[in-house]
């Protein structure tokens, strides 16, 4: 109970859960646990069942994919305050990428099935959780699109002032 209480306090302080009513924080805390990963260890691997998502409290995480003949490519890095993982939301609930701890990482891990069940029981909670994740997914999509544009690498159409 004491541990659960402190988890709830941690959730209340996190921007991701800002504005969520106390009873909901209580419910979500019931699905959470504290975890830590040593530098270099994998938090999850591509293709594995996506059973959890994480709120990073400390440290840095690299989202990676391994390409034949190119080796490992880092797609994005995440740090303190960031949310890691949303494949637990979307069937078939499998991780799309590797997530590797670049440093010691401390995080809160949330059981995906537990959260989904609570959301199914209470659609208002479901809306709150899904709208928060929708925002994160949209931000990541936006960032990925900008990366795809290769805006620094493309040959300028004209002699640039800044070149």
């Amino acid at each position, binding site marked *: 109970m004491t541990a659960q209480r402190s988890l709830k306090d941690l959730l209340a302080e996190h921007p991701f859960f800002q504005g969520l009513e106390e009873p909901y924080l209580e419910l979500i805390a019931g699905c959470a646990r504290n975890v830590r990963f040593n530098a270099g260890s994998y938090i999850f691997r591509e293709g594995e069942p996506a059973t959890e998502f994480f709120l990073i409290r400390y440290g840095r995480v690299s989202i990676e994919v391994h390409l034949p003949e190119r080796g490992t*490519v880092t*797609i994005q890095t995440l740090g303190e305050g960031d949310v890691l993982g949303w494949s637990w939301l979307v069937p078939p609930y499998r991780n799309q990428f590797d997530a590797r701890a670049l440093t010691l990482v401390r995080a809160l891990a949330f059981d995906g099935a537990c959260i989904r069940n609570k959301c199914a029981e209470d659609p208002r909670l479901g809306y709150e959780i899904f709208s928060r994740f929708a925002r994160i997914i949209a931000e990541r999509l936006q960032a990925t699109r900008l990366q795809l544009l290769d805006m*620094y690498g493309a040959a300028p159409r*004209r002699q640039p*002032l800044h*070149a």
Partner: protein
Amino acid sequence: MTETLLVRPETARTPAPMAPTRWRVLRRRRETHDTCTLELEPLDTDGMAFRPGQFNMLYVFGIGEVPISISGDPAQPDRLVHTIRAVGPVSTALCARKAGDVIGVRGPFGSAWPVEAAEGYDVVVMAGGIGLAPLRPAIYHLLQHRGHYGNLVLLYGARTPRDLLYVRELERWRGRFDVQVEVTVDHAGAGWFGHVGVVTTLLPRAHFDPEETVAFVCGPEIMMRFAAKALMERGVAPERIYLSMERNMKCAIGLCGHCQFGPVFICKDGPVFDFARVARLLTIREL
């Protein structure tokens, strides 16, 4: 504060703006695989006083002339520094100059980053790619007058780790206790332990008070648009977000019209504009 802090362009103060003066290459430094920095000393004058954000027309005799932002220290007018990305015949020829070679220089032209008017504010400097070069004079000024500003934040995004400019300086700035420096790249292999992601993803980590912040942004136009949007979402007023615009400049004194951008000329009224002034123009494709 809602009015612009922008210093009016000082092109009118440039004597004989169409006549180049001769400058000798003191040093050429290779910054990246396609970018070099030229350090120049004057042959015809005592030097060139300039303001951070202004640009010069650099002339390779017999080949042509291009507009390039000044990337050196405004406190050292006897040393002109330009960082050049080799993208065309003139810029490639500039990067091929060696110590002792002579080039022509016209300038300085255009408006400046409002460094004096930003005193008392937090300052966020956001650079993308080669856009760090026109911001470097402003960074020098901010650091030399550190006590005049609140929090200083430099957010810099590049394509890959090998495209990062001024790596040694970045490391030095990062080592200071009075400036926050965050660097990210769009693409990286496993050997890179820094941030990966677009430059706007660094904003949530930046420490500044949005209501008391002035932002200087320079990079590809699309990066500046998204950076301005992200800064405004964070609460920075559009009048206090400054961009350095690019267009094809020829005369640099507002006569030829090559760099017309709606109702303004980039060379004469810019290149530095506050976002409130150019936000609508940035959405017009024909411009």
